[in-house]
């Protein structure tokens, strides 16, 4: 099952109410994480931190990382890509290629992401919405990230990046798109299902920590 962790509702920049998105997701057979920066009771909730500087990012992280099921950092700028992958509190670095000519993931970012367990996001909407040469460029960036992930071992997480009900994709559809652009079947399944599950589990455990590396174990 596709676990789609970056979907925006009316409460951030989308055009559908959270309840409507959850309904559409159920009919598509996928699980949603609403990335609005609002803590919902009945849905997975995340926050997307959009920061101008490294300092602002860390400030926002400190304030919000415990309140949400996962934390996404809005990537694109080289210094943010680097800062985000350096911090273990960050779960996902979203679209590191946004507004760039390269993939935004270099050797340093790749190594840091693998070391600190930060997943690098590839959003389907950036592939679906691009046409012609723009799509070629986008696919080149995704391909570069895939090659680096094979070499350095960081996780790729695939999301729809949807801001409306028509931008969501089902599990089969997401998998078909990924395999058609060069992911192997097992890589595709890992990116849409296993990695998101691991992110949520890791976060759940991290929230129980009393201090770094110390967790209260109940029996």
């Amino acid at each position, binding site marked *: 099952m596709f676990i789609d962790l970056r979907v925006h509702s009316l409460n951030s920049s989308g055009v559908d109410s959270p309840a409507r998105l959850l*309904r559409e997701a159920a009919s598509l057979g996928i699980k949603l994480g609403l990335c609005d920066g*609002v803590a919902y009771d009945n849905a997975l909730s995340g926050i997307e931190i959009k920061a101008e500087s490294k300092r602002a990012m860390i400030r926002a992280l400190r304030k919000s990382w415990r309140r949400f099921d996962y934390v996404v950092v809005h990537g694109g700028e080289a210094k943010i890509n680097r800062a985000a992958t350096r911090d273990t509190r960050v779960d996902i670095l979203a679209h590191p290629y946004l507004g760039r000519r390269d993939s935004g993931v270099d050797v340093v970012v790749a190594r840091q992401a693998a070391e600190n367990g930060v997943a690098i996001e590839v959003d389907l909407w950036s592939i679906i919405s691009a046409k012609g040469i723009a799509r070629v460029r986008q696919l080149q960036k995704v391909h570069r990230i895939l090659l680096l992930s094979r070499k350095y071992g960081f996780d790729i997480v695939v999301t729809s990046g949807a801001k409306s009900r028509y931008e969501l994709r089902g599990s*089969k559809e997401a998998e*078909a798109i990924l395999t058609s652009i060069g992911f192997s079947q097992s890589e595709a399944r890992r990116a849409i299902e296993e990695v998101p599950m691991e992110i949520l589990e890791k976060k759940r455990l991290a929230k129980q920590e009393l201090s770094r590396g110390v967790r209260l174990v109940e029996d």
Partner: protein
Amino acid sequence: MRKRYIAFRVESDRSFKREEVVRAIVSSALAMFGEARVAEANMMVLDFDEDEQQGFVVCSHLSVADIIASLSLVSEISGERVHIRTLGTSGTVKALKRKFLNRKRHFINAESTVKFKGKEFVVVRESGECCDALPRDEELINRLKLRKMRFIGVTKSDLRGEEDAADT
């Protein structure tokens, strides 16, 4: 060559003619995979029902994933945001129709003004619990325009004022 039939439904804020849908699907496949691969896949849009907005394509059993990808890579038809949802795959038309093309999604055209989160909307159509509504405030209209859409999506529970369990 073994054939596979793939059922799909076009979801959008308006209905489309058969020609528009066929053109969009074929050009999406051509753009993504090229003429040689599409020829190899033996793809053809066989049927499209304009009332139900659903239909099916036929292709070779080896290229089912490619065709599903090209269907879901269609993002707009005639300037309107769409999602071509894959309903299922089958080896015969009969089984396809029985399994996937039997359910109808009727939109009831409505027109009522409602309030949601302190803003006024006109509900334009509804299907079961889901309602599509036209916003009146500038900010949301612009947001929709950017997404090439006309209506925002809400549910009846939203309109009844049941909070979507946000605890902020």
